[in-house]
């Protein structure tokens, strides 16, 4: 119960802080919106309709969740370092990885705002019929996807702790993940060597589950894989963070130089 309270309180605090940031709050809403608008126009130009257009709308809207996490998660620990709070996080009497869960979950939650905004934008500006076949399963799929992307963000955050300009890495992996996780392009349309990479990325399963729920197919298998991959990120993140904290204690520093 104490751990849940820790995650909930820290998530709410981080969410309020990020909502007031122009970069994390405003740009996380607008940036995927520019791409979604372009994509809606492309599909309209290709005379897409019905399920194809709905599928594009779901994929475009989910882009915002990843977009809100990729750059900010990669830079999260550099920001803590810059603010002088990284030492406090490492010294806190809780596992370091656990303290990062609410941080990256708050980013993914902002992405969920972006997702709703993009779906509304598609409905209002492009007249896309957002008829979700199984709304309850769709909402569950969104929640699981937000959680899974948050966990992936945590892994990225911990892995990039020694990379001073990690924001550039986070920014650079934004579009590759949109592409190889099948947000808008069927995985089968990608080169065969990409598919194993898609399979180990949780967003692939999350987006597939959302799309299945929206079009009336069963999302449960995809949701299971999404949770499994997210859990494996958590395990890896715990191991990496233990090694990182041990190294910091042994060297008596968290500084990069």
């Amino acid at each position, binding site marked *: 119960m104490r751990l849940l309270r820790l995650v909930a309180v820290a998530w709410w605090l981080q969410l309020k802080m990020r909502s007031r940031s122009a970069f994390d709050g405003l740009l996380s809403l607008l940036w995927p919106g520019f791409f979604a608008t372009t994509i809606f126009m*492309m599909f309209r130009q290709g005379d897409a309709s019905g399920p194809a257009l709905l599928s594009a709308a779901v994929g475009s809207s989910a882009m915002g969740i990843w977009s809100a996490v990729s750059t900010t998660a990669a830079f999260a620990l550099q920001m803590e370092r810059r603010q002088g709070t990284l030492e406090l996080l490492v010294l806190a009497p809780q596992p370091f990885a656990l303290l990062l869960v609410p941080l990256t979950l708050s980013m993914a939650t902002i992405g969920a705002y972006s997702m709703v905004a993009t779906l509304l934008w598609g409905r209002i500006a492009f007249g896309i019929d957002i008829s979700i076949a199984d709304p309850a399963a769709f909402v569950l799929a969104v929640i699981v996807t937000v959680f899974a992307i948050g966990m992936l963000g945590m892994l990225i955050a911990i892995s990039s702790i020694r990379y001073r300009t990690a924001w550039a890495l986070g*920014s650079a992996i934004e*579009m590759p993940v949109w592409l190889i996780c099948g947000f808008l392009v069927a995985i089968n349309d990608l080169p065969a060597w990409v598919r194993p990479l898609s399979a180990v990325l949780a967003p692939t399963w999350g987006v597939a589950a959302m799309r299945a729920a929206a079009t009336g197919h069963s999302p449960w298998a995809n949701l299971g894989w999404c949770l499994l991959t997210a859990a494996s990120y958590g395990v890896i993140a715990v191991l990496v963070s233990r090694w990182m904290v041990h190294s910091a204690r042994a060297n008596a520093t968290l500084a990069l130089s």
Partner: protein
Amino acid sequence: MNSLRLFFVGGLISYRALFGWLSPWILVPTFLFAPLFQIFLFVYIGRTAGVNDDRFFLIGNAVVNAAVPCLFAMGNTIGGERNAGTLPLLIASPAKRVPLFLGRALPVILNGFLVAVFALVVGALLLRVDLPPATWGGIAVAIAACSISCTGLGLLGAAVALRVRETAVMSNIVLGTLIVFAGVNVPVTAMPGWMQGVAQWLPMTHGIHATHDLAAGRSLGSVSGALLTELLLGAFYATLGLTLLRWLEWESRARATLDTA
């Protein structure tokens, strides 16, 4: 002579000092990796949506990536000075403003040009898109025109940075606007009328259109009108930027503060 020195030497020093993206740890992912994946993303989406050909998306997305350094580096000419604490020194200096800021634009233009050329060449090789050697010269001229015009818009952004602290957010919004409106992934002619109207006033629109024509085999002379319009737009935004800089600088002196809050 002093102005020439300020233009060339000052511009180069400022670019190296203020544009922190020249580190290979930023340069490689931002200028080499990201543009290629933007091209791949839209090529595959285009195939899924059943519109246009790979070459259309290759050209649009390669050329628009020239805007990344043009917008962000120019924004940093003021934003970077503010972060470094040297903005008051810059404003107080007796240097002529036109060579000072246009000199800062020159390396940025070259940077934007090289980013777009790299994305176009490597993208064409990886996607096996045929760009005949006879078209290379004309395409290079068109990309250079796009880099120049976009740097003009970046100079306007630099002026706004005297009052807006979040220059990265502002530059991202401008870049997103170009991706939607400038005919990068959807031909301008396929857009609603009001969007076509906006597109005509944006850098990149005419340059990207000219690049498509050149890649299709048209001569440089036949697209000279589009390229001239592109350059005139760049000059328009640069003039607007220099004027705004002068006015905001005057206001800063009158109010005795450079703080934006």
